[in-house]
């Protein structure tokens, strides 16, 4: 899959790199199971394994939202503020 949602030259800009990182980060974090497959530290009695993944729901939301905002700005700049 390509890095940015829509590829059009000039393709790579700093904003787009950030967008790509925001979208790729959840994959790295969630698929690297070994990094969070442990019980301690617990949080209000919930093992690390569970609260860490639920925390990632929030992190992933924040990242996707950042990507969305950046993308909007990127598109607006490209289309001369048609939106």
């Amino acid at each position, binding site marked *: *899959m390509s890095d940015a949602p829509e590829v059009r030259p000039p393709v790579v800009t700093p904003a787009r790199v950030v967008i790509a990182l925001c979208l*790729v980060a959840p994959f790295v974090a969630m*698929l690297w*199971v070994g990094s969070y497959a442990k019980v301690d530290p617990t949080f209000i009695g*919930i*093992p690390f*394994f569970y609260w860490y993944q639920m925390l*990632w729901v929030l992190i992933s939301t924040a990242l996707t939202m950042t990507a*969305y905002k950046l993308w909007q700005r990127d598109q607006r700049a490209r289309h001369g503020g048609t939106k």
Partner: protein
Amino acid sequence: MNDGVNGVALAVFIIFFLAVTVMGFLAARWRKAENEHSLDEWGLGGRSFGTWVTWFLLGGDLYTAYTFVAVPAAIYAAGASGFFAVPYTILVYPLIFTFLPRLWSVSHKHGYVTTSDFVRGRFGSKGLSLAVAVTGILATMPYIALQLVGIQAVLDVMGVGGGENTNWFVKDLPLLIAFGVLAAYTYSSGLRAPALIAFVKDTLIYIVIAVAIIYVPVKLGGFDDVFGAASEKYTTAKAGGLVPLEAGQWTYATLALGSALALFMYPHSITATLSSRSREVIRRNTTILPLYSLMLGLLALLGFMAIAAGVKVTNPQLAIPQLFEDMFPDWFAGVAFAAIGIGALVPAAIMSIAAANLFTRNIYKDFIKPDATPAQETKVSKLVSLLVKVGALVFVLTMDKTVAINFQLLGGIWILQTFPALVGGLFTRWFHRWALLAGWAVGMVYGTVAAYGVASPTQKHFGGSAKEIPGIGEIGYIGLTAFVLNVVVTVVLTFVLKALKAPDGVDETSPADYTADAGDPGVQVELPPATAGTTH
């Protein structure tokens, strides 16, 4: 778990069920007289509702028997490994963000209503389009089967038939009732009913979730006690655990990734996505969906709570309904069962209609009877939607019901094989249509054969969805392995076919179509109905 009928719970359950069904039926009639569009606006992208209402309806549709029954049951039985559903849904957002807006644009530009439509337009290949349609229909069946199992579990716990030591009729009675209700419901109300009853359904579901994730842990003495009890159970049973062992980590990751890639290939998800008002709505909605994952995670923990509460069931699917019956007063248990039951019924109806429309549009009209009249289309759609449900029933009866999450995973193995044609096609025209078809065939055959060969303690075949990955030696999700094979075959054959100058097919789309938005020239805001049968 057949210890007599729970009268109060059953009465509440039936009242809610009847109320919702009658509402659906009335909605169907009301709509005929009123503005055609007034109900479409619900749940499907929220054409005139604010973000909050949209979110409420969209979120409510995601809570199916998968969330309420299958995932907690997997946790109850095996512990950590069932929690892969949470990373699965986390991975869905970046995926939606990346490719669904493109699909929206090209579909609204060319009037595509199904993935098959797109694949045919993009690659000029009827064969590939047929493959995608057949896969969509086939893969939907086990997913509907999962919903049937959910309804069955609720009926079973309430004491309507079920139990292990009775004759086959009483034992399968809950399943037969579930099937009958679903068939009658879809037939009478079609797609309209789910839209109007969404508010009632979703309110019920949110109330039950809120109560379940606050009341139950408090009553059980906090999470320390809950996880303590669970840990003890896994240790004595020598199965499962609170965290996945080294050996289970590949399985965990591949299940999460494979499920995430598969989700938006299903016919019913595509229908819902394409009905959004604009491509921006899709992106905006992805930023709102995560609360669903959070709830899913908390509901999954109910599996541990069932252990701590001393729920002992041989069929793990009954664990959560049984927990509700044990912990809640009878009347609220009835409310909770109604939420689970209706929450399974509505998506099952939507799925079977989406699959039926796929058949009518991309198989019946394309291959069998191109000049079919609207009346014929409606008839075929209705018939196929029934056949799809019968197919689902066959899955329930032949597969291991005690691991219902496998139904969804089996569907995923198949539907994932349409990913290269669909998502590949959204980004590049490089793949050759014949190569995609060959890759699809290899993936389907490998996936089916591999899944067939997995045995479980109660089943000789189709006992699970994970198997050793050839060449790596770890245990991984079969769907993802088949997908990788599919891609490899597709890429290699594309090189070969290009070298041989095989005819490439006509691409009716142009690059600008993939970024078009509502308001651009040629973009249809309102897509035509998939078939005349859509409004049955």
